[in-house]
């Protein structure tokens, strides 16, 4: 998993400073730099594409409004991810037909048999259900680590807890997921 670009040109902190002064072009660069990662996190937490898109939009709007309160003590992306995580946890996963059965991605895998489709759908539904069963703070930790590859220190920043707490959350989240997904092991 690629690391969030901390020092590209222009740097995040320069863009934040410009956006804070009303430069929407600078904010556009920040949106395009982080929307994909923010979306992956939101999707991992809510399991629905439309909801995830809406959450990311809301998160950027909220970030824009509150840029004045961003003091730069943390990186912009951990600050943004915190907003995403909070919104996603608030939204919860809604009762909808599972997006995991969407056929478009399955076709990308090369002539899957009907049984493969069924199996893949079941697997994805099981993964989302297992993630959904985790307490919100563990769900956030595992998504930030496994999907986004954040370090323990970065997860601690997002969740605003000590690193030891992050380690504990990952430990329990993995143990529960492993138990819930044991029958799919090796797939």
């Amino acid at each position, binding site marked *: 998993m690629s690391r969030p670009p901390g020092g590209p040109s222009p740097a995040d902190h320069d863009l934040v400073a410009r956006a804070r*002064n009303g430069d929407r072009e600078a904010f556009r660069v920040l949106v395009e730099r982080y929307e994909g990662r923010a979306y992956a996190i939101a999707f991992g937490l809510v399991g629905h594409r439309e909801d995830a898109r809406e959450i990311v939009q809301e998160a950027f709007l909220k970030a824009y409004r509150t840029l*004045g309160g961003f003091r730069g003590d943390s990186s912009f992306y951990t600050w943004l991810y915190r907003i995403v995580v909070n919104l996603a946890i608030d939204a919860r996963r809604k009762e909808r037909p599972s997006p995991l059965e969407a056929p478009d991605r399955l076709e*990308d895998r090369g002539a899957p048999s009907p049984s493969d489709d069924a199996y893949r759908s079941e697997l994805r539904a099981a993964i989302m259900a297992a993630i959904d069963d985790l307490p919100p703070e563990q769900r956030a930790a595992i998504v930030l680590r496994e999907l986004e590859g954040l370090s323990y220190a970065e997860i601690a920043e997002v969740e605003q807890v000590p690193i030891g707490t992050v380690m504990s959350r990952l430990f329990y989240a993995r143990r529960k997921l492993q138990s819930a997904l044991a029958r799919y092991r090796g797939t």
Partner: protein
Amino acid sequence: MTCSTVDEQIHAYLDGELPEPARAAAERHLAGCAACRERLAAFQGLGRLLRRELSAAAGEPPSLWPAIERRLGDIAVDAPARVPARGRAAVGRRAWRAVVPAAAAAAAVIAAVSLFREREPAAPSEAPAQVASVEGGDRSSVVLLAGTPSEPPIILVTETPAIPRLSEGDSSL
């Protein structure tokens, strides 16, 4: 290193967060312990499974800027810290206007404390500091720490922070 030690450290090892020399010790143990290697492989497989399936289920990352730009509309950045150079004097005057009633409130508190001290016997020296808080004008407030009888009172004229904190309005995790 024992299996139970590796078990405790296996997540940090897996995540590249185990510092030396513990990392080297864990690797030595893993090299000779099939059971621990199997546990490690299981967690690695779990991570791969989550990344692969969630990434596929999420689909292509969206391009959200057009929608965000529309919704930004006339939204302005809350900019408590940004003060144009030509506006500093005016802000200074506003701040001073806020301090005046606060200072008056502070004087009232001092007078009250002085009166109280004249009428009451001295408290034991280990008595906790007395704290009074008085709302001043605008965003200011006065906090008076009367301290102990042997310590002079401390008066703080504070201004309520105008900068919103991230935690405001966000649910705690």
